[in-house]
Structure formats: structure tokens, C-alpha cells
């Protein structure tokens, strides 16, 4: 990869250094030991089933429909949601988990108009997503406390899928559920520490898009999806 340019840095930083008496920039700074770490106390000692309960309760506050099913009944549950949302067209990410759990076959057999995100067909994929009734992705990490699905977008997993369609469905493997953001950022921090590339776009999605910009009334569904559903799946 070609390196980007950095302009004007030395003058800018030496001005700051003069003011705060900083060391030279190449001397690594050690983070102090913080005097308190309340983030680790949140939902401490809750097991996976208890966390599902927390997630379910939180969904009520974030205008999100909650479903709990197992792998065998996943397609049934999805069809139920399609019916409820009046879905005719579906876009989903190119993610091996759709094949592993046979979601893609059932989508293709559903008789609905489906599109698997295709990086090589960027324009067509965006066009389809823009008109689609629903976008479906798997959750990579799920935060019980806030009711958040974390998506590591990247190859095959277009940013548009969870953004442009009218509705959004997140399939949440039970094993992806953690307590809160702390566990997700810890994992990302480890990746950085190990010199791994992190996803160019990590989305923390908490329910449908909304705004309170008109007289402080909550309006659900502004630029992104208008409705959202989470489907927690046991055994996967």
C-alpha cells in the first residue's frame, strides 16, 4: 500500500510540545494505571443466558424487535419477520455464515427477490440495497448492555447492507453475546497490539436510526433503516 502524506506536522507538534513540556514524539508514552475501572463491574458474573435476557429487555428501549430461535427454526423465524415487515426484496452480506447455517438456500428458495453483496458489482449492489426492503447481516460481537450489534465490515461485507434498506435484521449467534462495549474494544485493542489489520469500518449498531431534531420528538427511521429486528440463534 502506498503511504499517505503528512504535511505541516513538525511545526504544529513542536508548538504543542513547547506549551505542555512534552518529550520528543518518538519516546513512547506509558499509559498510567487508572485509579478506577468501573467498566469491568458492569453485568459482572452474568452468564450467557442471563445476558440474552438483558439484551431482550434492552430491545424494548431501542425500538427493536427481538426474536430467539435455534438453528433449525431460523428460516421460519426469518419468514415470520419478512411477513411482518412486508418484505419483497432482500440484500445480505457475502459471509460464509449464511452458507454454514443454510440461510442462503432458504433465502433463495423463499421466492423473494434476493441479492448477495458483491464487491465487484459495487454500483449494482448499492442500487439494489437502496431499494431493498430489508438488509440482513450476522453480528460479529453483540453487546447485551446496550443492545448493540458490532459489524466488522470488509471484504464481502458491504457497509451499505445494514444502512440503505428500509429494514434491518441482525442474526445474532448466541456465542457472540458479551456484556458490553468493553469486551468488544478489548478485542479490537488486542488485534491492534498484535499488529493485525482491523476492519476499515466497524459499526456499533443499536436499533433503527432515529432523530429528535424536530421539537425533541423521537422519530424512528431517519437516514438508515426504519425498523430493526434481532434474531438470537442458539447453538451457533
Amino acid at each position: 500500500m502506498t503511504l499517505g502524506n503528512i504535511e505541516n506536522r513538525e511545526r504544529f507538534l513542536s508548538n504543542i510540545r513547547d506549551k505542555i513540556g512534552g518529550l520528543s514524539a518518538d519516546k513512547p508514552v506509558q499509559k498510567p494505571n487508572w485509579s478506577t475501572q468501573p467498566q469491568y463491574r458492569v453485568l459482572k458474573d452474568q452468564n450467557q443466558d442471563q445476558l440474552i435476557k438483558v439484551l431482550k429487555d434492552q430491545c424494548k428501549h431501542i425500538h427493536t424487535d427481538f426474536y430467539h430461535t435455534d438453528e433449525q427454526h431460523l428460516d421460519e423465524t426469518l419468514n415470520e419477520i419478512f411477513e411482518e415487515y412486508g418484505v419483497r426484496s432482500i440484500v445480505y452480506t457475502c459471509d460464509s455464515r449464511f452458507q454454514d447455517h443454510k440461510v442462503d438456500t432458504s433465502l433463495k428458495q423463499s421466492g423473494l427477490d434476493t441479492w448477495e453483496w458483491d464487491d465487484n458489482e459495487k454500483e449494482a449492489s448499492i442500487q439494489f440495497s437502496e431499494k431493498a426492503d430489508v438488509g440482513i447481516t450476522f453480528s460479529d460481537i453483540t453487546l447485551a448492555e446496550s443492545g448493540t450489534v458490532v459489524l466488522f465490515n470488509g471484504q464481502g461485507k458491504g457497509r451499505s447492507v445494514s444502512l440503505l434498506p428500509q429494514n434491518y435484521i441482525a442474526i445474532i449467534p448466541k456465542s457472540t453475546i458479551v456484556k458490553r462495549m468493553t469486551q468488544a474494544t478489548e478485542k479490537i485493542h488486542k488485534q491492534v497490539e498484535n499488529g493485525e489489520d482491523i476492519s476499515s469500518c466497524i459499526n456499533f449498531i443499536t436499533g433503527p436510526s432515529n432523530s429528535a431534531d424536530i421539537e425533541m420528538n423521537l422519530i424512528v427511521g431517519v437516514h438508515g433503516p426504519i425498523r430493526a429486528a434481532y434474531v438470537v440463534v442458539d447453538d451457533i
Partner: protein
Amino acid sequence: MPMQIGEKEFKQRVTKGLDDNFMRGAVRSAQGRLQNNRASAADELGDWEDWRTLGKEIRQHTIEHLDYYLHQLSEKVAELGGNVFFAETAEEANEYVKNVVKSKNAKKIAKSKSMVTEEISMNEALEELGCDVVETDLGEYILQMDDHDPPSHIVAPALHKNKEQIRDVFRDKLGYEKTEKPEELALFAREKLREEFLSAEVGITGCNFAVAESGSFALVTNEGNARMVTTLPETQITVMGMERIVPGWEELDIVVSLLTRAAVGQKLTSYITALTGPKQSEEGDGPEEFHLVIVDNGRSKILGTEFQEALHCIRCAACINVCPVYRHVGGHAYGSIYPGPIGAVLSPLLSDYDEYKDLPYASSLCGACTEVCPVKIPLHEQLIAHRRNIIEEDKKGSLAEKVAMKGFGQMAGSANLYQMATKMAPILSTPFSSKNQIRKGLGPLKHWTESRDFPKPANESFRSWFKQRNKRGVQHDVRKH
């Protein structure tokens, strides 16, 4: 002064705010609601004080080593193929952005809400190039459609407008034909803005927090417009105030958790989007090209001074939502894009005392702001420090001279504003500023009455007092002629 909004002098802006009944009602209910949300979100955590302590420690450490973390950030961004420009002034930042836009031959630019681009008047600079700059945050879009009406609240910029006014703006400017129902208005804006997102060549975002260790940027939103801006256009430009940075992802967790709770009482907002570099070559959507502009524009003047902590601010607006003075006068009265207590601290620092000498007096020093600030900035103490400095400069004659040269012999205004502030403290004992806090705030005020011979405020209501005060001001002017 680019960050300045409105032409009128402080007292006129205040009067205008007091006369606007809808605005005052809206401010009051918004303040109440946001304040309640914040309080219950804080309560729910149980150990909010510990969170605040950690937030403060993180901000303090980061600002004390700002040179190191900015260096690390820029290295990471460049490694990922992004370009970094360090801009000392607003002009430098705008020049750079203009050059990028020119090189892309871009005609349409979609922006997501950003205080710093507002501060440096980036839209105006880009419009000079003949570009169409579209604000995509619903509140900002409404203001932009209404001939660039300035924002009045950091989190809810169009707070001063009611839905009928918004309907009329949409009807007059965009041919909207439906009712004033918020859902219909929002749906209309959604459709209009979709077209803009899909046709924009360049997307511009602000930055809630940069993450030094990985060269990432976190955008905290509810509407999804920041995601649009970073998904569809080919080129992305992110503009950040140089202090908006944390060391790593673990710290990002804390500041984001504090921000969303303190700002809107949510555990997390609908979208926290963390972007790292341009898109990878094998990816479909996302920007091909990424530029980061890091802006100083007066911030480094604050480093190493008694006001350094003002740079810890995470722009949650909690201090604004509890402020009794903001409640009465509204955002526009501050004449700065940064209103409320943090605006009163920050505006004179980023600009100067000549421009904003009134603001440190637009406070009753009740201390409610300090009490809610999620990163424990001692806001009311900083306001007192400002007052001390203003009086010092006044004594030396340096300030009065400059003011006189500008043609408004208004220095007496400070005394009157002082009076206004002291007067407000007792009347405004709101549910969230208990008697205790006010007394705490009045302590230091007493000191000022002793050192300067201020008249004791008469026992009038704030409104009638303010009218009186204005009359006195007028007489004063008449005498001068």
C-alpha cells in the same frame, strides 16, 4: 470571527432570546428532558462518579501528551494510505480542503454534523468554489434550508424552531406539501437527502474521537447520516479539533460511554461508526481516498494555562442542559457556536476577551455545570478565572482601550452582567440546582462584591430587571453623546 454567530451585541441577543416564547419553552422542555435522561442513565450505572473520575484521568493524560498521541495517530493514518494535514489556522484548514475538492473536481459535498467545520466556516469557503455543500444531519439541514440560521444547541441545533416553522421552510424552499407532523417532515428530508448522498463526490465528517493506536475515528450519531457520508462518496475528509483524541480502544469505550449517557441518556447511540483509513482494495463500498485535517485554530493557546482542562471537553452539552442562564436566554444569546457554560469558557479562549468579554458573566456560578460534566471540568471556577482576567485587563486599560476603538463603550456592561448573574441565582432555584449548589457558587461571588463596588441588585424579577438594566444602558449612552 468565524465562530461568531449573529451580528447583534450581547444585550440585544439576550433580549431577543427573552422575547422568543416558543424558544424559551422549547429550551426549557429540552433541557428538562435531556437532563432527566442523563440523570437516569447515570443512576442506572450506579457508580457514575467512578466513571467520571476515569473519564477525567483519560482526558488529562491524553492532553498532557497530546504531541505524542497526535504523532502516533498521523503515522497510523499514513500507513493506511490516508493523508494527514496539520492546520494551525482556520484558513490553512480551509485551503487544504478546498484543494482536495478542486483536485477531485467535485461539485457536491455531503457533510455530517461537525462543530469544528462550523467553527472555521468551512462551508462558506467551499461555497466560494461554487460547490454545493449539503448538511445532512436533520437539524442542521433544517437550519441550512432556512438561509443558514445559526444552531442554538450543540446536540439539538434546531431546538429554537417549532414544527410549523420547519414545515414552512420545507414548503418555501423545497416544495414540501404535507403537514407539520414530525414523521412526515423527517420522511421528506430522508428522501431529499438520499439523492444528495448518492450524488455527492466528497463526504466531510467531524470526529468525536480519534483513536491514536490504530488511526481510527469514531463518529457518534443517531440518524445514520455520518454512515452515509462515509459509505457512498469516493473521497472522505475528516476534520478534527486537535484535542479530540484518545490513546486506544479501551479508552474509547469509556469516553463514548460517558458521551452518550451525558448527552442524551442513551447507553449507546444508534450508530457508533469507527473508521480506519480508506476502504481496503478488495472492498466494495467506502471511500477510495481519505484525508484527515487536524485543526489547532487557537487551541494550543490554551495548553499550559489555567484553562487547559477546557480542552478535556467531549461536547456532550450536559452543562448546557442544566444551565439556568441558558434556560432563560437560549443558545443564540451567546453569539458563539459554542453556547452555555462550556461556550462561555471556550469562546473567549479560542477568540479573545474583546469579542466575548460578556460571556463569563452569563452565569450565576451555581455550579450545576461542574457537577454534571462527565469529565469533571471545573467550569464555574474557569468562569471565575476569566472574570479575574477580564478585570485585570480592564485595570491595565488594555481591554477598555480595544473596546473603545471598536466603537462600543460597553465595558460597564460587565458590571451589569455581573448584576444579572447574581440576580439570577436566587430566582432560578430549579430542581437540579439545589440551594446548596447555589450557595457553593455564591461563595466566590461574594469575594467580587467586596473587591469591586457593585450595586446591590434590587428585588425585581429577572425579566423586569433585565429591561431596567437595558434602560439604564440606554441612558448611559445618551449621556455620552
